[in-house]
């Protein structure tokens, strides 16, 4: 079989070839886009996990998740190998300027002295050090299990929030649990912090950080501080000493001790989370490939049809070759070579198209989709595996055409 058929049907044959290559190319481009973007996002998340400033996390989501977080933090700090333990309460609140508002923002309540040591490399330098929040250990407002002390009423705000609201250090920002300004309390802005780059979404862009006990009161039972406000946080991020971090068994031992302190809460190491993320990423990649198999099936079906059509068009040539005694395997070899050539061409075109699509999305799309596309990674081994898979499947398409070619009756073909 020849690549361009008979002269009379040259244009028709070329069109078939172009369509076959295009069909395979489209079928390949889809998994290239999905796997590269999905893999990129997973790798980014994994990188963040591996570069977090803490190694163990205790979690119980919700406003009243982890009870007694101040005392739990103290007890965790007493465990050998723990270098910092930072309880974090994340809650949506309403903010009010001198006259405007309300504006929704994400509030993070932290123990200032414990918060900075749990920041990862990507967050280094984004926060003023030490945090200008008055009470480094958050023990004045919350002392001895009650809220009897005096709140510092200091807050730091994120740079996007400050820019949008024209906020500056020294101004007063009112924070409240609801859109009712009368429930809000005035806080002094003592600093501005940056937002880590490469965030997938806008979450955290409009954010404030304040002492944990203050946020507990705001999100507890209103501005009137009473002893019944729960001492809650949703996570406690635990940083360990370098020697423990590098020793998996020592890390497991610390993790086990923390779990014994809080048997009802989830305790996990970031290593474990990274492993789970990798597994989830693997499952997602499998899902993407399964999803893409629909397109691949259609593409290769089209390739099989084109090869069949070409066998039909070359029926006489095949008959002549067989009449001359050309062995079936040589005829099959020609068809398989053509199928592989078309599939390889389509595969390479698909990889290039997939790359260009991702680049276009990263350049011209907006918001989260664009951010995700910018994180895409093109792993040569993965791309080669996709093209290799297409080549292997093209053998199936070629086999169908080969079978048809070898079933041609020589005497019929020569009539």
């Amino acid at each position: 079989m020849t690549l361009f058929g008979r002269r009379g049907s040259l244009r028709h044959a070329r069109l078939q070839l172009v369509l076959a290559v295009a069909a395979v190319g489209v079928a390949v481009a889809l998994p290239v886009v999905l796997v590269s973007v999905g893999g990129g996002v997973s790798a980014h998340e994994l990188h963040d996990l591996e570069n977090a400033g803490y190694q163990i996390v205790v979690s119980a989501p919700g406003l009243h998740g982890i009870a007694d977080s101040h005392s739990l933090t103290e007890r965790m700090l007493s465990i050998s190998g723990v270098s910092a333990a930072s309880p974090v309460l994340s809650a949506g609140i309403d903010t009010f300027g001198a006259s405007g508002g309300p504006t929704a923002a994400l509030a993070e309540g932290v123990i200032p002295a414990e918060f900075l040591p749990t920041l990862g490399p990507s967050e280094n330098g984004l926060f003023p050090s030490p945090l200008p929040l008055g009470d480094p250990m958050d023990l004045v407002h919350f002392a001895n299990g009650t809220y009897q002390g005096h709140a510092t009423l200091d807050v730091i705000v994120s740079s996007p929030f400050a820019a949008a609201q024209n906020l500056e250090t020294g101004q007063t920002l009112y924070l409240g649990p609801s859109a009712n300004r009368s429930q809000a309390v005035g806080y002094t802005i003592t600093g501005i912090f940056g937002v880590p780059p490469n965030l997938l979404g806008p979450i955290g862009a409009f954010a404030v950080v304040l002492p944990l006990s203050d946020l507990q009161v705001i999100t507890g039972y209103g501005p009137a501080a009473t002893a019944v406000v729960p001492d809650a946080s949703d996570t406690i991020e635990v940083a360990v000493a370098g020697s423990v971090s590098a020793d998996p068994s020592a890390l497991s031992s610390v993790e086990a001790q923390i779990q014994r302190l809080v048997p009802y809460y989830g305790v996990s190491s970031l290593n474990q989370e990274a492993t789970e993320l990798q597994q989830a990423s693997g499952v997602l990649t499998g899902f993407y490939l399964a999803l893409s198999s629909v397109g691949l099936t259609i593409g290769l079906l089209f390739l099989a049809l084109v090869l069949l059509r070409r066998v039909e068009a070359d029926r006489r040539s095949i008959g002549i070759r067989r009449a001359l005694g050309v062995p079936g395997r040589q005829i099959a070899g020609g068809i398989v070579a053509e199928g592989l050539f078309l599939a390889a061409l389509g595969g390479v075109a698909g990889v290039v198209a997939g790359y260009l699509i991702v680049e276009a999305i990263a350049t011209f799309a907006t918001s989260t989709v664009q951010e995700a596309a910018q994180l895409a990674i093109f792993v040569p081994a993965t791309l080669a595996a996709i093209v290799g898979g297409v080549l292997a499947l093209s053998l199936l398409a070629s086999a169908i055409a080969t079978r048809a070619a070898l079933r041609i009756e020589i005497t019929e073909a020569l009539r």
Partner: protein
Amino acid sequence: MSESRVRPPGIELAGVTRTYGERGPDEVRALRGIDLGIPPGTFVSVEGPSGCGKTTLLNLLALLDAPTSGEVRWDGRTVGTRSERERARLRLAGVGFIFQRFYLLPTLTARENVELPMRALRTARAERARRASELLAEVGLGGRERAYPHQLSGGEEQRVAVARALANRPGLLLADEPTGELDSTNALAILDLLERVRRDRDATLVLVTHNPAVAARARRHITMADGRITSDVAGA
């Protein structure tokens, strides 16, 4: 040209029938109990009206087709009912076939067409090229090696077909109406060429024709009608 070649086989057909279609009213009995022996090196013509079974007989001799019943033997060995793979192997090495409509591959040059059977036999590239050039020169087409079939006249195309049939030095040459598409001048030239190459190679030549003038060139004349051999006469 003197050269090593495949020795022509002694051919025998015993009780050969060839039937097409389902048993019943649509059944076509193309050959009905053919018994025939062709010694090596003879020149045989097969004549008869259209539809008498000449081409079917030639296809069976060329192992392009298998008999419905009976046996096709080469040198006493049954070959007609072997697998297509085996028949293709025997055909490639032992049979040169010349078709009425030439059947050159349109996308190959004259030389590539001649090289085709040698490529299938995995002859070395240099040897293929050398031999194809020699054969084309022998049939009077030296200098036309790079021409494509559409650039050749009918007579030239048939010469290329003859060269292709000789490529693997077959002992058995089969020609199905080789002059049917040619004018009288070219037809004579092709017949002269076939006679010469047969004589030079001492090959067996079976030539199917319905033209008595063409058949007259043969030493033995077989006439067919309605799927049967009606006469088998040795000529001068």
